C-alpha cells in the first residue's frame, strides 16, 4: 500500500518537480496552505496579466525568487510550484535555501505523458501546448532524478504514478532538532569543560546539583545502562510570597557570585515564577517537582585531566533529562576519530585518546553514539535563549544547514592569523542585534562579559582560569576556579587587554573599568534611529516613531546633544488640565482632579511647579563611577542636560563647581550608602529660568514688554486727543488700549519673577522631584510621596543649592481636602507662582482604560501671559483660546513617558547603549511632532 503522508522538516523549501499537466498545483493546493505556495504561473500572471505568457518568464521567475527569499528569511515553509524539471531552474532555489539555512526538499510528481496530455487538454489555456513539450519535460525530469541528491536536496520524495500521488493525504512536518522552544528552564549553562572533571563537580555542587558516583557493578553493560554517575538537579526555588524589597536588591545587572549562590535568593523571581506558571515543558511528569536543567556548551573533552569522566557525567545527565548538550569542535573531532576518520591528533586530543585507551569498547561506542546525536544548537524558552558552542548569528538561529552547524562549532574566522599563529575570529557578537540571548563558549576569555545580549562562558578553566555557569533566567554568573593550569594556552587569556596596552599605552591607562560593551557602545548604528521605528515598551505595547520626526531628531542629536552615553533618559512632555470654564481662567485644578477621579485614581500628589528649566542630572560619586557605569572617560563626574539632551551649562567652570557641590550634598546626606550606589539619575528643575533662557528672555519676553510699553502710551495719548475731539469710537479704542497697557505691565511682572542674575553657583537652585535611578534599579515603583520625601531629606544636606518642592497629598474622595488643594493653588498663583503639577499617587498610573497621564500641569493666570501673550485675557481673546484641545498633547505625553521609562529600565538592566538610545532618540523625535506648544 502506498504511503499516505510525506515527511518534511517544519522549515523547508519544497520544490515540486513535474512536467506541465503533472498535477503540481492541485497537489500543492490539497496539502499546503495557499500562502505557502509560490507558483510560477501566478507570478507570470502578476507581471504580465497572463499566466501562460512565456515571454514573461524571466520577470516572473525573478519575482518568484524574490518571494521565496522573503518567506525563507522570515522562517516560513515554502512550496515552489513550477515545473522545475531542469537543473538550471532548481539551482537558484537550492541556493536560496542554502542562503537562508533552510533544508531543500524535492517532491517529484512523475506521471505518464498521456495523463499530463489529457489534463492539459481539459484546460483551454493549455490546449495549444504540443505533445513535445510534455515529452521533453518528462525527459528532463528523468535525467534530473539521479542528480537531485548531488544538487543538495536533503529529502527527495519520488511519487512514481498517479496512484502514489493521490494516496498522499497529509504532510507531516517534522520539527527541527534544534527547536526546544517549549523548554523554559530555569537553566544552568556551563562553559567549556575540557576534561576538568573536579571543577565541573564543584561547579555543579555549587549550583545545587547532587552528584553520586557509584561503583559500576556490571562491567559488561557499563556503557549502556550505567555510567556510574548520577546527578540530581536542584529543585526550582519556590517563589516567596512577600514582594521583594527593591532597595535591598540589585536587579538585572549580572553579579558574579563566588560564594554559594544557592542560598542567595534569586533577584529575578519573576523569571522563575513565570516558569512555574508556564509549566515544565513536557519532560517532567505531572506531579514531579520542577528541577533546574544544566546545559553544556560543548568542548567537554581534550587538554584536561579527565575527559572520559566528564563525558560519563554529561552523558548520564543528558540521558536522564537533567541536561542538554551541544557539541563543540573538540567533541566532533573526537567523534571523527572514533569513527575512524583520519584526523590530526593535536590541541589536546592526544590526552583524551590516552585517557580513553583503558575504557571498555562499550563505553567508547556509547560516547560515539552520544556525540553523533548532538544537535548543533538549541533554541529554547520560546525563542528567548539560544545556546551554541561558538555562538550563532540571528539569521542562523533555529535553522538547519551545513553552514549553521559549522558556525555553531567553529564560529567564523576572518582569514587572518594572529601573532600566536591562531586564526583571528570574526566577532559576530559585536554586531549581534537579535532578540534571543545567546550563550556560547569556544573562545577563552578572562571574564564572562555581556555584549549585545550575548555571553561567552568559556573562562578558560583548562588554562587555569575558571569554569563558569550562567544561571538563566536570573543572569547570574557562578564560577569555580581551576585547581591548576592543565594546559598552557597558545594565546594568553587576557591577550586582548595586553594587545590594547601594547598598542595604545595611553588608552590602556584609562581602559580598565570600561567593558567590551562600553567599547561596543562607542559606535551606534544609523539604522537603529532613522526611518520608521517601532519601539516595544513595557508600559505601552509599542511606540511608533515616524520617519520625518526621526529626521528632525537626528539633526538635533548629532549637532547639539551630549554624548549619547550620558543620555539615559529624556522626560516626557506634560499636558495641561482641560480648559477651565471659569471666568478669567484657562486652567484650574478642578479639571485635573476630575480627570484622575474619573479614571479611578483615589489620591493625587500636588507639587508646586517651579519656573526654571527642566533638567536631567546624571551624577557619579566620582569619575571612576561614570567610567565604570557609562563607559565615559575623562568627562567629569556628571552632566546636567535639558529636555532635548543638550548640556545645560555652557560655562565649564560653573558646571564643574555645580556638580561637585551636588555630589558633596549627596555625600553629606549619606545618599550613596543609603541607596548602595555610586551614581544617580535625577529629574529636576533648575532655577532661575533666566540661567538657561537668558537670551530668550531678553530677545523675546523682555523685548515684547519693551515694545508694548513704548508703543501703547503713545497710542493712548493719540486716542486721548481723539476722544477730546469727540470722535465716534475713540473712547472705546482708548479703553481697550489702556487695558492692553495694563496687560503689558502685568506681563512684564510675570516674566521678571522668574529671572534673577546668575553670577555664581550660589544663584543656582536645583529642585529635584524624581529620583529616577541608581545602580541596578529604577524608582518608578515608588509613589510620588516617597519621591518627594526622599528628595526633601536630600535637600536638607545643602539648602542653599537644593530646593525641596512643596507638595501635598490629596485624597480625591475628600471634598474638603480637594477644596484645600484648590485654595493652595489659588494662593500660590496669586503670589506669582507658576502653578502646580498634579500627579497620581503612583508613579506609573494605571486606571480605567490603561496608562493614565503621569502628570497634569495647572498653570496660574498671570504666568500664562508668558505663554499666551500679554493680552490673552482681553475680551474676544480668551474665548477663542478656550478652543484648545489637549488630546494630541496627552497622547504624546503617554508615548514619551512609556519610552522614557523603557529607556531607563533598559539602561539599568545593563542593555547595550543602542537599546537605551533608541528610546531616548524616540522621545526626542516625538518632541518634534506638531503639537500646540502653548499646551
Amino acid at each position, binding site marked *: 500500500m502506498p504511503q499516505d503522508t510525506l515527511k518534511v522538516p517544519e522549515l523547508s523549501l519544497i520544490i515540486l518537480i513535474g512536467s506541465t499537466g503533472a498535477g503540481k498545483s492541485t497537489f500543492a493546493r490539497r496539502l499546503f496552505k495557499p500562502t505557502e505556495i509560490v507558483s510560477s504561473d501566478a507570478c507570470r500572471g502578476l507581471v504580465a496579466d497572463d499566466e501562460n505568457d512565456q515571454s514573461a518568464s524571466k520577470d516572473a521567475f525573478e519575482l518568484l525568487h524574490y518571494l521565496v527569499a522573503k518567506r525563507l528569511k522570515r522562517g516560513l515553509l515554502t512550496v515552489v510550484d513550477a515545473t522545475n524539471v531542469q537543473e538550471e531552474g532548481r539551482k537558484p532555489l537550492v541556493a536560496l535555501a542554502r542562503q537562508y539555512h533552510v533544508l531543500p526538499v524535492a517532491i517529484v510528481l512523475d506521471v505518464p505523458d498521456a495523463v499530463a496530455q489529457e489534463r492539459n487538454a481539459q484546460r483551454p489555456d493549455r490546449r495549444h501546448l504540443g505533445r513535445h513539450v510534455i515529452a521533453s519535460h518528462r525527459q528532463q525530469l528523468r535525467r534530473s532524478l539521479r542528480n537531485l541528491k548531488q544538487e543538495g536536496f536533503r529529502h527527495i520524495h519520488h511519487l512514481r504514478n498517479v496512484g502514489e500521488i493521490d494516496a498522499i493525504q497529509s504532510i507531516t512536518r517534522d520539527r527541527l532538532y534544534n527547536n526546544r522552544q517549549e523548554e523554559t528552564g530555569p537553566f544552568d549553562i556551563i562553559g567549556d569543560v575540557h576534561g576538568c572533571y573536579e571543577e565541573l563537580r564543584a561547579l555543579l555542587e555549587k549550583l545545587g546539583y547532587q552528584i553520586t558516583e557509584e561503583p559500576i557493578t556490571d562491567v559488561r553493560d557499563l556503557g549502556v545502562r550505567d555510567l556510574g554517575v548520577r546527578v540530581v538537579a536542584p529543585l526550582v526555588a519556590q517563589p516567596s510570597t512577600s514582594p521583594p524589597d527593591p532597595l535591598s536588591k540589585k536587579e538585572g545587572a549580572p553579579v558574579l557570585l563566588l560564594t554559594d549562590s544557592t542560598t542567595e535568593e534569586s533577584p529575578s523571581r519573576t523569571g522563575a515564577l513565570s516558569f512555574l506558571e508556564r509549566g515544565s515543558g513536557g519532560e517532567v511528569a505531572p506531579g514531579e517537582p520542577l528541577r533546574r536543567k544544566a546545559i553544556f556548551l560543548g568542548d567537554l573533552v581534550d587538554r584536561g585531566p579527565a575527559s572520559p569522566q566528564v563525558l560519563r557525567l554529561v552523558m548520564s545527565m543528558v540521558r536522564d533529562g537533567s541536561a542538554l548538550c551541544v557539541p563543540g569542535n573538540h567533541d566532533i573531532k573526537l567523534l571523527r576519530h572514533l569513527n575512524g576518520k583520519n584526523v590530526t591528533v593535536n590541541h589536546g586530543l592526544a590526552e583524551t585518546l590516552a585517557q580513553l585507551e583503558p575504557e571498555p569498547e562499550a563505553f567508547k561506542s556509547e560516547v560515539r553514539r552520544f556525540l553523533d546525536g548532538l544537535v548543533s544548537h538549541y533554541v529554547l524558552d520560546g525563542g528567548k535563549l539560544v545556546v551554541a558552542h561558538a555562538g550563532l548569528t540571528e539569521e542562523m538561529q533555529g535553522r538547519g544547514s551545513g553552514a549553521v552547524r559549522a558556525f555553531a562549532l567553529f564560529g567564523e574566522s576572518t582569514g587572518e592569523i594572529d601573532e600566536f599563529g591562531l586564526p583571528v575570529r570574526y566577532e559576530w557578537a559585536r554586531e549581534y542585534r537579535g532578540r534571543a540571548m545567546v550563550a556560547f563558549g569556544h573562545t577563552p576569555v578572562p571574564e564572562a562579559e555581556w555584549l549585545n545580549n550575548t555571553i561567552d562562558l568559556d573562562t578558560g578553566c583548562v588554562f587555569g582560569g575558571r569554569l563558569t555557569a550562567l544561571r538563566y533566567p536570573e543572569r547570574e554568573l557562578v564560577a569555580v576556579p581551576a585547581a591548576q593550569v592543565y594546559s598552557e594556552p597558545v594565546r594568553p587569556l587576557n591577550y586582548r587587554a595586553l594587545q590594547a596596552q601594547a598598542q595604545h599605552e595611553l588608552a590602556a591607562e584609562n581602559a580598565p573599568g570600561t567593558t567590551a560593551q562600553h567599547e561596543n557602545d*562607542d*559606535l*551606534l*548604528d*544609523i539604522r*537603529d534611529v*532613522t526611518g520608521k521605528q517601532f519601539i516595544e515598551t513595557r508600559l505601552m505595547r509599542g511606540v511608533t516613531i515616524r520617519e*520625518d520626526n526621526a*529626521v*528632525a*531628531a*537626528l*539633526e*538635533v*542629536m*548629532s*549637532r*547639539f546633544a551630549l*554624548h549619547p552615553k550620558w543620555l539615559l533618559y529624556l522626560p516626557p512632555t506634560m499636558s495641561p488640565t482641560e480648559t477651565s470654564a471659569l471666568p478669567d481662567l484657562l486652567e484650574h485644578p478642578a479639571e485635573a482632579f476630575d480627570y484622575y477621579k474619573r479614571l479611578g485614581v483615589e489620591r493625587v500628589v500636588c507639587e508646586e511647579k517651579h519656573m526654571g528649566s527642566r533638567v536631567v542630572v546624571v551624577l557619579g560619586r566620582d569619575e571612576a563611577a561614570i567610567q565604570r557605569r557609562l563607559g565615559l572617560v575623562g568627562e567629569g563626574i556628571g552632566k546636567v542636560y535639558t529636555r*532635548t539632551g*543638550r548640556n545645560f551649562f555652557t560655562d565649564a567652570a560653573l558646571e564643574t563647581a555645580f556638580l561637585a557641590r551636588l555630589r558633596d550634598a549627596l555625600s553629606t546626606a549619606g545618599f550613596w550608602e543609603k541607596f548602595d550606589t555610586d551614581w544617580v539619575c535625577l529629574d529636576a528643575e533648575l532655577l532661575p529660568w533666566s540661567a538657561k533662557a537668558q537670551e*530668550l528672555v531678553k*530677545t*523675546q*519676553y*523682555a523685548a*515684547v514688554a*519693551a*515694545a*508694548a510699553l*513704548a*508703543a501703547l502710551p*503713545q*497710542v493712548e*495719548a*493719540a*486716542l486721548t*486727543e*481723539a476722544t477730546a*475731539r469727540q*470722535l465716534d*469710537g*475713540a473712547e472705546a*479704542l482708548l479703553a481697550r488700549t489702556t487695558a492692553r497697557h495694563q496687560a503689558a505691565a502685568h506681563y*512684564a511682572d510675570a516674566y*521678571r519673577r522668574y529671572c534673577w542674575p546668575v553670577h555664581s553657583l550660589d544663584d543656582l537652585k536645583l529642585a529635584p522631584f524624581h529620583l529616577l535611578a541608581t545602580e541596578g534599579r529604577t524608582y518608578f515603583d515608588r509613589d510620588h510621596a516617597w519621591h518627594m520625601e526622599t528628595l526633601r531629606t536630600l535637600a536638607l544636606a545643602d539648602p542653599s543649592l537644593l530646593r525641596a518642592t512643596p507638595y501635598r497629598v490629596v485624597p480625591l474622595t475628600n471634598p474638603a481636602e480637594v477644596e484645600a488643594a484648590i485654595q493652595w493653588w489659588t494662593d500660590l498663583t496669586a503670589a506669582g507662582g507658576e502653578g502646580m503639577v498634579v500627579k497620581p499617587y503612583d508613579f506609573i498610573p494605571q486606571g480605567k482604560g490603561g496608562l493614565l497621564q503621569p502628570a497634569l500641569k495647572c498653570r496660574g493666570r498671570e504666568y500664562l501671559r*508668558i*505663554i*499666551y*501673550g*500679554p*493680552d490673552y485675557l482681553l475680551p474676544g*481673546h480668551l474665548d477663542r483660546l478656550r478652543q484648545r484641545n489637549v488630546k494630541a498633547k496627552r497622547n504624546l505625553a503617554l508615548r514619551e513617558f512609556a519610552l522614557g521609562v523603557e529607556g531607563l529600565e533598559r539602561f539599568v538592566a545593563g542593555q547595550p547603549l543602542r537599546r537605551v538610545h533608541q528610546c531616548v532618540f524616540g522621545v526626542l523625535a516625538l*518632541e*518634534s*511632532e*506638531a503639537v*500646540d*506648544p*502653548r499646551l
Partner: protein
Amino acid sequence: MLLTISTTYQPATDLGYLLHKNPARLQSIEVAGGQAHVFYPEATAERCTAALLLDLDPIGLVRGRGGASGEGFALEQYVNDRPYVASSFLSAALSKAFGTAMNGTCKDKPGLPAQALPLAVKVAVVSAPGPDWPSRLFEPLGYEVDIETTPLDPTVPEWGDSRYYTLHLRHTGLRLQDVLTHLYVLLPVLDNDKHYYIGEHEAEKLLHRGGDWLPQHPERGFITRRYLRYLAAYVNPTLERLMEGEVSSVDSASPRMDEVESGSAEPVQQQVAESNDAMRGLAESTLQPKTSLHDQRLQQVAHEIYQLSPKRVLDLGCGEGKLLRLLLRQPKIEYILGMDVSHQALARAAQRLHLDEMPPRQRTRLDLIQGSLLYRDERLAGFDAAALVEVIEHLDPNRLAALEAVVFGQARPAHVFVTTPNADYNQLFEKLNAGEFRHDDHRFEWSRAEFAAWATAVAERHGYQVRLVGMGEEVAGVGAPSQMAVFMKKDA
C-alpha cells in the same frame, strides 16, 4: 502700533483730502492681520495730524495660518512684538488705508498730490538693528531724523536699550505720496522680520514702490537684501521647536565665515540673485565679482579629488551642494553621494542642483541622503574618496572619536579630505577677538599643530598616510586661512 503724519501746510486739513480720509471721523478698516483705525488727534487749519493705528489680532495671526506651515509653531510665534512694532503689516495697512494717496491721486483737489508739503512723521515704535539705522535709511532721502530709545527692561539697567525706537521724521517739503512710499518700503526693512502674508508678487510691488529712489540710495544693498529675506525665509517648524533658539540650519549650512572673512554681504547677494529673477538687475548693481574663501576652498578640494580620478565620491556634510555641483561637472566620476545631517540643507541642495529635472543618466550619478557622522552607516562603504569640508569643527571634541570610527574605521574610503579653519590665522581677522571662533556653531578651531597632531594620530590608528596642505594664501607666521589633511589608505 501707531503712525502719525502731521503737516503745517495751510490749510492743514487738506491732509484729509490727500489721504482721502475725513478728519471728523474715526474710520476702521479690515487689514491683513487685524484692524486699522484712521483718526485725527488734531485737525485745525494750522496743524493737522492723521493717525494710523494698527491693531493686530495676535490670536488671529496664528489661527489664520492654515496649511502645513501653519501647524506647530514655536512658542515665539504666539508671544511676540508684532502687535506693537511697525512691520510689513503696517506697509500692508498703509497701502490699504492710504492707497489713493500713495498713487498720487486726489479727486477733490487734483493739484494737491504734486505739492511739496512740510511733513512730520512719528512711528511708535520701530524695531531697528541699531540706533544709527533710522538715520542711515531716511537721511539720504532728505529727512531730519530723531529717535527716542527704550530700555529693554527698566528693572534690569545692565541689559541696556532695546531695539525699539520711537521714530520722528521731518521734511521741509516733500510730496505726501513720497513719504508714504518711503515708509512703505523702509519700515519693514528696518524691522527685518518675517511677514507671512507677503508673497512673491508683493515683493515685486515693493520693488515697484522703490524703483525711483532705491537705486540711488547709499544703503540699497542693505535694503534689497533685507526685504528679500521674506522670500528666502523658510521656516521649518518641526525643527525650530527643537532648536531651542539656535540658528536654523540653513544659516549654519552656509558657513557665516564668509561674512567674517570678506566683511561684505556678497554671498547673501548671490543668494538673492538666484532666488528671484525680478531682483536680479538691482542685486547685480551691488555685486562684486569676487570668489569667496569658501568657494576657493571647495575648488581646491574638488581639484584634489579630480587628480585621483575616483569613480565613487562621498561628500560628507554636503550642505547645499556647492561641492556636489563641482564634482558633477567631472564626467569621470561615476557616482557621488552627498550626505548631510540637515534635512533642510539637503532639500536646498536638491533644489539648487535641479535634481528633479536632471536627465536620467545624470540623475543616477548623484544621491542625497540624510545621515550623521556620529552613527555607523553602511551606506558609506565602498568609496574612492570622501570630502569633509569644514565639518569637524562643528562637532564637540568628545564626538570626534565617533566620527573617526565612522569614517576611517567603518566607511574607509581610499582617500579622505578633511578641511578645517586654521586658528593661527584668526589674528588676521579684525572682527574676531582673541579666542573667538569664526562661526557661532564652531566647537573648536585648531592651530596647524593641533590639526596635524589629530590627523597624524587618526592616520596611524587606521592605516592611512596623511599630508597637510594650507588652503588659501599663505601668510608668513600664521599660514593659510584654512587647512586640509589629505588621507590615503595604505593598502589602497
